[in-house]
Every structure is written in structure tokens, then in C-alpha cells.
């Protein structure tokens, strides 16, 4: 606070001239302008776990949907001569990846045994000689397709149902909620079994089952958030301006619901993925010979005692997929939460 009086002159004590005053901006905003999404992305980037999960998911997506680039063999091609071969990755000589297997205490080169010296199955083969790696890729693709389908229903049914129920309110809301509750009270499994009576087990039945049940949580969350937003003053302002309900839903409600929607999507997906895997595992979902992570785990389970890799690898992929979505969902929830902005 101390000042050097010597350095100031009498001239300094003149009032500010008009031109100089104009330079002082009394309404200046110094911080850079970030949209809500930009700001959330910045916050997400700080969360290491979520970023790792995101990268893993991107890799898995690429591997699964561009599997034709990575497939080493046809996933459905059987080759009984090369059944139950351990993983062999060219150039790696660690037990478990060098084509050798522990048979009654001895390390044996299984590829030599089966006269498959020129072939490489990087994750081994199953009991029918099918390449496990390619089958896992294919199964992952099915899981991710399920993910996309579940997302679609979440958005198409869940969000619309939730906004409608919340915005209209009153009796309509009560009725819509009761309908959901009835639907919820029927277990997914029962729905699936009933569908199989009518349709064959397969993707169609699974999709239908998901279509009936998986979006309900989204509807409830969106409804709750809509009820809260409905009474916010900016919505009241839109109403006093004469904005139609449709426009309000699109312009005002949806953008402010986006956090809830994105976060919930990240949690719906692993549930749906697991649902499919589980159904396939118990045999009423995707069925053999098609590869789904569930059927692979089922197949692998049979040989678990001697050839554990057949179950481990599909199980690991399924787990990683689900954990990644969950961690990303967690990270997104923190990043999108406007209350914890600094």
C-alpha cells in the first residue's frame, strides 16, 4: 500500500478525460467463453480413469466393427483337427502364448501335436477348432450392437415418454407412470421366455425384450428432471412469451436434460450387454454356432479345468466392456454436473 509520492506529479491528480474513460471497460468479461459441453469435456479430461475407459471403448469399437480388418480366421469356420489349441502369438515365447500347454505336468507343444505348425491362433481355438480371437471379436460386435440398440430405445422411448409424462403432469402423468410400473413388475427373463415361445431364440427376440424393458429407467429419470425443470423461471419465461410446448421441449428441456440422458445411457448399456450375454449363456439368447460373448463363456466353461483360457478371454472382454462403460458413466456424471463447477 505504500506509495512513492516522489514519482507522482501534480498532473496525475487531474480527473480522467472522456477519451481515457471510454477505455476503461466497466462491463468487461475476462474469462474465455466456453459452452457447457466444452467445459464438461475439459473436466472429463482431468479424470484419468474415465479417459482410460474412453480410450479402451474406442479401441474395442474399432476392433469390433472393423473386425474384417483384424480377423485372422473366419469365426464360424470349424476345423476339428485343430480343436482346443492354446494361444500362439508369433514371436512371443511366454507360457500361455507360445502354443504350449501343460498336459499332466509336462509342457507340450500342442501345435506340433496337431500338425498345425504353420497356423497361428492368437487366442487359441475352441472345441470345434474355431479361432477364439475372431469369435471374440464377433461376439464383442454383437454386444456393442446390443448397446446401440438399447441406446436407441432409451432415447426414442425413454426420453420421449419421460418428457411427455413430466411436462403434461396431472392425470396423464399418473397413468403413464402406472403403466411403467406394471411393465417393470414383469421380470426381463420372463418376457424373454415368453417371446421365445413365439419367436426363435436370436437377435430379434433379444431386441424385442430390450425394447420392452430397458428404457424404463431412463423414462423415470427424465420425468423427474422434467418435473424439476418445469418450474424453473426460464421455462416460465418461455411460456409467457407464448412458446408452444413442442418448442419448449426441444429448445429448453432437452438441452438441459442432456446430462441426465447421457449419464443414464452410459449405465443402461452395460446392463443391456450383460442381459444379452446372460441370455446367450443360458442358451435362450444367441445360439450356437453364432459367437456371442455369452455363448463363448458357456462353451469355454465346459473345458475350464484343462483349458481355462477358453473361458477367461471372453469373460475378460465382457468384464472390461462393462467396467469401461461404468467408469465412463461415473466420470461423465461428475463432469456434467453443473453444481460442482468451480
Amino acid at each position, binding site marked *: 500500500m505504500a506509495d512513492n509520492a516522489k514519482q507522482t506529479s501534480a498532473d496525475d491528480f487531474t480527473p480522467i478525460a472522456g477519451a481515457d474513460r471510454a477505455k476503461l471497460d466497466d*462491463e468487461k468479461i475476462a474469462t474465455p467463453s466456453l459452452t457447457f459441453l466444452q467445459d464438461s469435456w475439459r473436466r472429463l479430461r482431468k479424470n484419468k480413469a474415465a479417459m482410460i475407459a474412453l480410450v479402451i471403448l474406442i479401441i474395442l469399437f474399432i476392433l469390433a466393427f472393423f473386425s474384417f480388418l483384424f480377423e485372422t480366421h473366419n469365426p464360424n469356420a470349424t476345423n476339428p483337427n485343430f480343436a482346443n489349441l492354446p494361444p500362439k502369438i508369433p514371436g512371443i515365447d511366454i507360457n500361455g502364448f507360445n502354443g504350449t500347454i501343460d498336459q499332466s505336468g509336462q509342457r507340450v507343444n500342442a501345435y506340433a501335436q496337431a500338425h498345425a505348425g504353420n497356423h497361428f491362433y492368437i487366442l487359441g481355438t475352441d472345441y470345434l477348432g474355431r479361432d477364439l480371437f475372431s469369435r471374440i471379436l464377433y461376439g464383442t460386435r454383437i454386444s456393442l450392437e446390443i448397446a446401440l440398440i438399447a441406446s436407441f430405445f432409451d432415447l426414442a422411448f425413454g426420453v420421449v415418454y419421460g418428457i411427455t409424462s413430466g411436462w403434461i403432469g396431472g392425470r396423464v402423468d399418473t397413468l403413464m407412470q402406472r403403466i411403467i410400473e406394471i411393465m417393470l413388475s414383469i421380470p426381463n427373463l420372463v418376457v424373454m421366455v415368453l417371446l421365445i415361445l413365439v419367436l426363435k431364440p436370436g437377435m430379434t427376440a433379444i431386441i424385442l425384450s430390450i425394447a420392452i424393458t430397458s428404457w424404463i429407467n431412463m423414462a423415470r429419470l427424465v420425468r423427474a428432471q422434467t418435473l424439476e425443470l418445469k418450474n424453473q423461471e*426460464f421455462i*416460465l*419465461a418461455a411460456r409467457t*412469451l*407464448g412458446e408452444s410446448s413442442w418448442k419448449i421441449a426441444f429448445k*429448453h428441456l432437452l*438441452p438441459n436434460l442432456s446430462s441426465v440422458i447421457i449419464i443414464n445411457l452410459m449405465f443402461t448399456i452395460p446392463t443391456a450387454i450383460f442381459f444379452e450375454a446372460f441370455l446367450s449363456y443360458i442358451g435362450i439368447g444367441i445360439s450356437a454356432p453364432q459367437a456371442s460373448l455369452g455363448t463363448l463363456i458357456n462353451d469355454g466353461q465346459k473345458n475350464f479345468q484343462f483349458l481355462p483360457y477358453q473361458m477367461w478371454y471372453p469373460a475378460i472382454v465382457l468384464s472390461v466392456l462393462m467396467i469401461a462403460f461404468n467408469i465412463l458413466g461415473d466420470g461423465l456424471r461428475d463432469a456434467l454436473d453443473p453444481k460442482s463447477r468451480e
Partner: protein
Amino acid sequence: MIDYSEENKILQVEHLKQYFNIGKPNEVRAVDDITFDVYRGETFGLVGESGSGKTTTGRAIIHLYEPTSGKIVFDGQDVSKLNSKKQKQTFRRDMQMIFQDPYASLNPRMKVKDIVAEGIDINHLAKDDADRSKQVEDLLETVGLNKDHSSRYPHEFSGGQRQRIGIARALAVQPQFIIADEPISALDVSIQAQVVNLLKKLQRERNLTYLFIAHDLSMVKYISDRIGVMHYGRMLEIASSDEIYAHPLHDYTASLLSAVPVPDPEYERARVQIPYDASQEFDGKERSLVEIVPHHWVRASEDEIPMYQKRAQEDSRLKQ
């Protein structure tokens, strides 16, 4: 000066009631039969504490709530129920609202430009995009903001600036009547003065009429021509702002005024708050607004009228 002739009434509220959860055990009679008029070009201050029903009154008039019963006449038309689409559209242009919470009254995901232009878009008041931008810029300038603020988001602005954006939004449709619902309560004192000055300037320039809802009595007196005091959903007293402050007739008004802090230490040291017993409102007597002296109404029962008349006389005797 305000023309207080019958023809110059822009808003007439008659026996307005707004009840919630009717018939259920948690029934709330937020507005319980109020009647008042607002004249063109004036500012009518509606004053009350929390639970008085003042905000609900404003929202009922502008049809954010559908009134339970009562008549609302606006600009000569009965708008108690908005029936046709055209009627709605005209109403929503002529009457606008400014809200209390600067943090909740702007959509956080929209740019300022789009927030202000919303009314313009709905009513197709702009010929093209360039015209729209120009109108928004003019409005922002009118409320004292820069035009490069239009591409920013609400969270980048201070409370006072946000409130001004809200005013710009209301002005965009060129209304005649603006209900200001506690527009300055959430703002700092020095910013309150800015916003109030802006509102007064706009009123002069655009011949606006305001219904100014507030609980801050000193500011309400400054901005209002006439004041209505509400308590528990009822209108207790209506008079010009000078009258209300100089000669409060109802006990509640007197109590309210005595509680207002003033930036004057000597006055504060001497101030004594007058307590008020609210039970006198619920003694079951029939009451309505009675004009005790010209232009000064008090909610009274038949037998209380002489008492209030005497009070009015006493005060004026003191004045002499």
C-alpha cells in the same frame, strides 16, 4: 402525471382467487379474493412478505396458473380465460414478465442472442437473420449491455447483467404491461439502483405500465405510484405510495413499515418495531376493501370503518 380516470384502466382484477389442491387436506388458498386496478402508465407496487400471495397473483394474471375464479380485464378485454389462439398470441405480446432469480430465469444452454430473440422468433417480428441480430443488439444496448455479449452464455454474466438480459427479452415483443416479479431482490444494493433506473427510463420512453411485486419497502415506494399491501392472500390496503408511508391505516402496514431498516444510524437507534397480531384477520368477520378517504382503501368490516376513518383524520390533524 397518471390519468386516474375510469377509461385509463389497463388492468382490472376482480375477486381473483387462486387455490391449490382444492378439496384436499393440503389445500392452499394462495390468493383469496383480491380486487384492484392498474392504470395505464403507472407503476403499481404489490407488497407483501413470504406467503402473502403476491407472486401467485402476478402469475395468475399472466396465466402461468389458471385462476381458480375471478375476472381479469386487460386493455378492455376479458382475459379471465384465454380461448382462441389469436387471443393468446395478442395477450402474450401485450403482457410480459420479468422474473426474480437471475440465475434461473435464463436457459443456461442458450446464447444470450437466442434468449433475447425468443419472443421475436415466436411472433415473427424479424424479416431475416440480419434484422433479428440488429433487433437483439438494439435491445442489449437499451439495457446497457454490449453487443458482443450476445454470443456469450448466461453463466458468464453477473446477477445484475442477467436481470438486464431478462428485461431485454421481455421488451423484445413490445409489450404494454410488464409484471416485474421481485426483479431486484436477488441483486446487490448498488445494482438494484441500476436496474430500477433502467426500468423507470424504459417506462418513460415506451409508455409502459408496471405491476411491481416486491418485499423491499423502500425500493417499492421509490418506484411505485400506488401500492397494494398483501397478507395471507388478501389485499389489506391500497393507496398512493406517499400516503401508505405517511399514513398507514391498517395495523399490518404500520407494523411492516416500522420494521424497515434505514441507512441512518440515529434513526435506527431510535426505531421501535410495532408488533402485529395476525389473528385479527381470522376472526370470521366479513371484510372487503373500503375507500376510507379518497384513493385510500383498507380491508375492513362494517364496524371497523369508523375506526379507520378516525385514524385517517388523526394523522391529517397531526400533519397540520
